[in-house]
């Protein structure tokens, strides 16, 4: 068990981040916190990808570093793309939240639901 913790702590960290992120998205009534939770959730997945590319004792995949095994650069490149997607999503989400706040005067999901029922 301890062995697993010391050798696979990066995987455990990414699973924890995914769990925390999902919990915040579902559990928090505040819309901005939900966006933060969504970001944490995505970062957990990004970390998972990045960590899979690492090779123990590996060298960076840069010209000049040829001795020893080379770290796989592909997952890192994929995650660069995914980070861009994540930033765009956050921007759209925040833009929507601004409109929701202008319309309802609240960021609390429960309050917004009540106002919608009253309409």
């Amino acid at each position, binding site marked *: 068990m301890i062995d697993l913790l010391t050798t696979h702590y990066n995987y455990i960290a990414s699973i924890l981040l*995914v769990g925390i992120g999902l919990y915040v998205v579902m559990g928090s009534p505040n819309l901005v916190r939900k966006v933060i939770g969504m970001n944490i*959730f995505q970062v957990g997945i990004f970390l998972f990808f990045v960590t899979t590319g690492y090779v123990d004792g590996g060298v960076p995949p840069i010209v000049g570093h040829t001795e020893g095994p080379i770290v796989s650069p592909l997952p890192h490149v994929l995650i660069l793309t995914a980070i861009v997607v994540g930033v765009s999503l956050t921007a759209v989400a925040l833009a929507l939240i601004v*409109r929701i706040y202008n319309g309802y005067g609240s960021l609390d999901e429960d309050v917004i639901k009540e106002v919608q029922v009253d309409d």
Partner: protein
Amino acid sequence: MTDALVLLIVLPIAAAILPVFLGILSDRAGWYVALAMSLAHLGLSAIVANAVDTSGRISYAVGGFQPPFGIELVADGISAPLLVLISISTLGVVVYARRAGPHSNAFYSELALLTAGISGVVATADVFNLYVFLEITGLATYALVASGRSPRAAVASLKYLFVGTIGASLYLLGTGYLYIATGTLNMASLSEAIVATPAGYASPTVLTGFGLMATGLLVKVAIFPLHTWQPGAYAESPDTVSAYISALVSTAAAYGLFRVTYTVFTRDFLEAVPIAADAFVLLGSVSIVAGSVLAVMQSDLKRMLAYSSVSQFGLVVTALGIGNKTALIGAVVHLIGHAVMKGGLFLALGVFAASVGARTMDEFKGLAAREPVTSAAFAVLAFSMVGIPPAIGFIGKWNIVVGAVEAGSWSVALVVVVSTLLTLAYFGRVIERMYFTHPDETDVADASVSADGGQPASDVSFGMRTVVVVAAVTAVLLGIAGSDLIDIIRPALEVYFV
């Protein structure tokens, strides 16, 4: 020749930038850009379809990097009809939007971006690239849903954004598992590499990857109980947007699910892991029944159509689970048919709302007398959705039922037949009110008041009605030409059955 395949994606992305700049010159510039884009898109997809017709399967290596290392785009007998469908739907929606709106250049930018995303999902042969196109589709859809001015639309869009992002991220995590197991992302080479892994299909990494990818895509398809984002998104967006996204967005995701299940994991995987196929059949069947029952309960017509989509995509997913040739043909035909029918129905609702202000079940009383042509088109599309021959809805459902019987799953065949009755129940209610119920006295008074002051009848253009009628005629013609459509799809499906 194969360049047309990549241009199908590049052209709309380039066109998405133009309305923003041309907006300085004219408020209507966006429409002309969108029209030119959709006509060019139609031309390109016709070239691709023609190439597929002559040579079977065409492939394009993006940036000159040869697959499996580079990104590959592929068109075959299944994706080519879908690409043509995307072009024609885009053209129809653009023509409709000229009068119906939303009247802003940003709308046309988002529409072009969505066209690019959907074309990409259909054309790509790389699992990570599929994720990127799913997210482009998602981002454009969130913006389009929120283009309705009400804060309600923003709330619906944000909900869709949270659920959609988590779905797409689960899919991304699944591709990560597959990449760890195999070291490749190309769909065709993945199918070989998965078998070659030490534990093969029994490998926990591969199984987890499948579970995550399938769950993520099922969220995007909006299968019960993962459908919660969908009714709000369809109901709160402007009518033009509802029609476009209901016709294509879930369709593209369902096609992605088909590709991942049958190209990446193949039928051997479904045979080795029967629980995967069983889960598709179970989730699909539950979705068919639950979607129909929820649709019967709605009084808002747009919500009713939204829940109807949950039920119809249940059919498609069930057919993916059954997995024999007949059922898969039914699934692809129903994907195409559903897009024509549901898009047309939403556009018809837009006409009703603009001309007589009817949006709920009660307001539909006696509508046929006031809006005869559109009502007739609506009725044709509704009966097609129920599955009455010779329309396209029948061909899809018939093949799925026959496939289920061939596979010996009588329970599935029963569910499909029951769902047909439920579909008749919720569309019958609407048609009964339109044709056989006289409007109440108060309704007539209200209508005359609103005709005087609120919304003049001239809000509906000839073009809007024409698009609805064309959708209805297409649904019937596709049904009559159903065997030709099946002849195009069948050779591409044979590949999965060798």
